[in-house]
């Protein structure tokens, strides 16, 4: 299976501290995977390895059969801390990404395309604004627009809605699903979160990382039909049961940590 993200025997240590141990994971193209874990489980580190920002000490990473050896435009990343460049207007932040992804485009073309992406995420009114003029939710919309503008088939999202208030968080979850469901072929998404509800609402699959060192302790399919409705899904027994079992898995892992210490 070459149309996939493959992680084999990934070990990663930092300052003699083992962060990830023996991670094996295969994610088929077009799947939305929620990567769930307590803080310290190394889930953000795992995402940075896939992004190519760090290299593992041992193991192999490949995207669509190609080994990952550094950052590449075939993988877009959205971080939690709105890493838009504060000295560029919102539209320039997107246009610079388009310029890299499609160098043949002209200046006007890039801007037009950037505006299209900003419309898509509901930022029509903020096109020529600067990041400091936007709320956290708006900045994160812009960050999503930028990742989409790169046109990468793989999107890596590191707790992108972690710093948002509940209302904005729900809105952006819906926006993300809407964009993802509308695209064809679907993008592959690895979404890091520590929020069980968020993981279940968004993902086709939930991969749970245990702590110290990070390793896969559960890998569960989430089989709720797509075009999910938040209200009825959260009220369903199936959702409730899955949520409980995941919470128990996480709690057991935490308890094991406490006993080990």
């Amino acid at each position, binding site marked *: 299976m070459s149309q996939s993200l493959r992680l084999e025997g990934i070990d990663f240590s930092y300052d003699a501290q083992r962060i990830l141990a023996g991670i094996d994971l295969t994610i088929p193209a077009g799947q939305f995977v929620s990567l769930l874990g307590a803080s310290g489980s190394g889930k953000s580190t795992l995402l940075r390895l896939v992004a190519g920002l760090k290299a593992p000490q041992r193991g192999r990473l490949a995207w669509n059969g190609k080994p990952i050896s550094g*950052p590449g435009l075939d993988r877009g990343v959205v971080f939690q*801390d709105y*890493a838009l*460049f*504060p000295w560029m207007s919102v539209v320039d932040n997107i246009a*610079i990404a388009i310029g*890299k*992804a499609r160098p043949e485009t002209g200046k006007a073309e890039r801007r037009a395309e950037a505006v299209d992406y900003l419309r898509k995420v509901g930022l029509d009114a903020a096109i020529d604004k600067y*990041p400091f003029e936007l709320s956290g939710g708006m900045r994160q919309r812009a960050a999503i627009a930028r990742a989409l503008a790169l046109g990468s088939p793989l999107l890596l999202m590191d707790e992108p809605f972690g710093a948002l208030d509940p209302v904005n968080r729900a809105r952006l979850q819906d926006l993300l699903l809407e964009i993802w469901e509308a695209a064809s072929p679907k993008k592959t998404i690895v979404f890091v979160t520590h929020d069980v509800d968020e993981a279940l609402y968004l993902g086709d699959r939930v991969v749970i990382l245990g702590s110290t060192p990070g390793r896969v302790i559960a890998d569960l399919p989430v089989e709720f039909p797509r075009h999910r409705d938040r209200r009825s899904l959260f009220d369903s027994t199936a959702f409730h049961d899955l949520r409980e079992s995941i919470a128990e898995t996480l709690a057991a892992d935490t308890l094991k940590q406490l006993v080990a210490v």
Partner: protein
Amino acid sequence: MTTESIALETRELGVTPTPHAASQPSASIGRRLTAIVETSLVWVVLLAGWLAAAEYFPLGDNPLIPHPLVTARALWESLPELWTGTLSSFSILIPGFVLATLLGIVSGIAVGTSPRLQRALFPFARVAAPVPPTVYIPYAIAVLPTFKLSAIFVVFIGAFWPIFQNAVAGAHALEERYRDNAKILGLSGFEYHWRVVFPAALPHIFSGMAVGLGFSFILLTVAELFGANAGLGRFVQYYADFADYPKMVAGILYTGLITFLAMTGLEAIKRRALFWQR
């Protein structure tokens, strides 16, 4: 120099009360009034001190401390000459400072982003930077064909190091998240330096430019004492030779004002350029 620091203080005092303005309007007005009084008090005391010195230590026909009114008249009469001097001084200061800014930024960012360049150049910079640039003046005058060229060179040296050092520090201070983002977007080479490192380093660069501009004025006027036939430093030196103290003091005050205006101009440019910093 005094004018400048007082002006800076005024600005700070004027700004501090604003955060409380919404919650305690009356307290804020009171504080602002106090600030104004405190600031003007310094000026009043200084002027009174000057007046007293001029009144009570007259010391003959040509007092070392000329009366403020005499000085004011001397300043008024010298304005055309001072203006010519200003143009002459700026024809040295501007090329020297602009060259130092351009080279300081380019080399500072290059060194700050390249560990290899840093290893190669830092030992030299560490030795060369602390040399007081004034010691180059006599040699520059001897080596370079014209006085103007040597003065430009000395101003350049004085302004270069602080700008260079701050540009290096600014490039080092680039936050990891912006560096990661640049990598994710595939920004590299000139584009990475120009659109990511340079703007991120600008706050540091402006600090370096402010220090460099101060040094430029010092070196300019010192160089003019040596060999100029026009200019602000030359004006003061010339009338000192003739013991024309009113004109000399007028020249000092005028130079202070010009320095202050140049600093204020740089500050205004900085605010415009760094508008995105909140």
